[in-house]
């Protein structure tokens, strides 16, 4: 292809980026940096330091972090088991794992709600078995469960890809040089999986940070993540300036974490979704 053709073909994408990324971003920045009268102000950019907002941000970061860690703790052993079991067709297993992603996201969260609510399926079962009750709906725990359930495939896939790509002979070389199971894990498998874990963390942490739907449904509106506050500013309070200011702060936070974990995922060549 000659250079002109390439340039012509890239026009739709450039228009897309301008229309749906650059211009909205300019609007957000403009709104965030002005007040209702249109005058320049730092008020909304610094609104994150308001105790309510600060608490919401902290909770968002905490829950996103906990969800990411739980996703790693589930995915990594699963990947190791899949690798050592030497299943003929890991593709099928990966397919089964990502199958829930094909169902509507809200539906999945509603299903979780149905399971863990006060009169839900789990409590029903527990009472039949006389095993007491769980009371986690409308708590941060419920939100974490929802986030883990929803975002686990985004962790599983890159981690699995990465672990399966580690050549067997490297592991054998480690054993050959005297490494037992523990040292094979700590000195070879984990270091060689960091890129996949990094990708996974980015892909779980970022949407968890900005989450508000899960918090609405499983938190019963009682738990305020930064995402919920932003949503309310836009749809209820109609304070778009404050909403934009908080959004921008959240974006910067997301950017920082992406840079932190993305450094590893950049050299993950096997990453496929």
């Amino acid at each position, binding site marked *: 292809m000659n250079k002109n053709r390439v340039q012509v073909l890239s026009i739709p994408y450039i228009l897309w980026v301008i229309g749906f990324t650059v211009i909205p971003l300019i609007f957000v920045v403009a709104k965030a940096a002005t007040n209702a009268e249109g005058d320049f102000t730092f008020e909304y950019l610094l609104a994150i330091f308001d105790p309510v907002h600060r608490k919401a941000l902290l909770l968002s970061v905490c829950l996103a972090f906990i969800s990411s860690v739980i996703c790693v703790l589930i995915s990594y052993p699963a990947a190791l088991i899949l690798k050592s079991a030497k299943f003929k067709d890991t593709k099928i297993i990966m397919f089964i794992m990502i199958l829930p992603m094909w169902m509507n996201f809200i539906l999945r969260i509603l299903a979780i709600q149905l399971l863990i609510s006060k009169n839900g399926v789990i409590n029903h079962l527990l009472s039949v078995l006389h095993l007491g009750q769980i009371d986690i709906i409308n708590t941060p725990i419920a939100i974490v469960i929802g986030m883990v359930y929803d975002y686990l495939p985004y962790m599983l896939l890159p981690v699995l890809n990465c672990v399966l790509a580690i050549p067997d002979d*490297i592991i*054998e070389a480690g054993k*050959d040089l005297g490494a037992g199971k523990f040292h094979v894990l700590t*000195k070879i498998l984990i270091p*060689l999986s960091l890129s996949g874990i990094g990708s996974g963390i980015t892909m779980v942490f970022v949407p968890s940070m900005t989450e508000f739907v899960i918090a609405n449904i499983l938190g019963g509106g009682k738990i305020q993540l930064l995402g919920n506050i932003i949503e309310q500013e836009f749809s209820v309070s109609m304070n778009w300036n404050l909403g934009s200011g908080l959004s921008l702060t959240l974006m910067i936070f997301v950017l920082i974490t992406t840079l932190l974990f993305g450094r590893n995922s950049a050299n993950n060549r096997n990453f496929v979704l």
Partner: protein
Amino acid sequence: MSKKLIELKNISKSFGSNLVLDELDLYIRENEFVTLLGPSGCGKTTILRIIGGFETPDIGSVYFDGVDITKLSPNERQLNTVFQKYALFTHMTVAENIAFGLRLKKKSDSYIKDKIKYALDLVNLPGYEDRYPDSLSGGQQQRIAIARAIVNEPKVLLLDEPLGALDLKLRQEMQYELIRLKNELGITFIYVTHDQEEALTMSDTIVVMNQGYIQQIGTPESIYNEPTNAFVADFIGESNIIDGIMVRDRLVNIGGLDFECVDEGFGKNEPVDVVIRPEDVELGSPEGGHTTGTVTSIIFKGVHYEIQVESAIGINFMVQTTQNFPVGSFVGINVIPDNFQIMHKPQSEDEEILNIEDIPLKE
């Protein structure tokens, strides 16, 4: 003769229904350079992996220095492996790769540093400590893999087609390096290859295998000059393998004509395979020949010509000679008695010469 260091006794191994090794016995002496040689898929790697501890035999035992090590895991064995695809730790520098085994053994930093330097000098890559494997050529990576293995001072080094991925020139260079290394280290090398030239160049002892069975064990000279069956003769270098009948001791009949040979102890009139190496067939004037023939093709091969001769006794000889005989020449054919190698007919499929369709596709 030095003592037996490794002994495989009555080893059998199957993968599913595929019987790869069948009651195999083999011993390896201390400080020997032993090569397992055979076509792809004959079970060489499986033997090496059983010695290394990466596979467990279904039956049979592995002895190391008289001790049964069959059940020990690889990290408990006093041997190290150089893998075919180098298997370097890509997340570590060259120095960290080499230090891997020593750190696990909790050696001191200064000891490790000295060892790294010593090993890198030994494989001719001084100063490469801080490089990453990805930034090295195939040959360099292979040297690092060797350095990483030998710093652990194993009694035995296992090498699985270590030069397979290198180009011809580098491969030849590395062959000499490996011989030098073996002599400097004074340890046992067990080397796997399907390349007969490599085996002949480097080994003290060659173990020729086919279909999981050992065909012959011997020095490179004895394997080349006195192959025990048609498979070995055919696999080690080119040869004429001809049907013959042993008339009596030291006399073999080929195509109705009697030839003197040096072999004894065959049955009277026993059908045999007669092996004649192409360089042992002498062409000359028709008058002086034991039999005669006509040149049907001649190809220049560099050092020699390769000539096909259709002989009066109905046998097509392949001949290697430095003399030029144009196509159509009428020539005399002689072979001195020493150069006939007489063998019993194959008793089983694995002793027969290799057909192209027998060779499994490489993984």
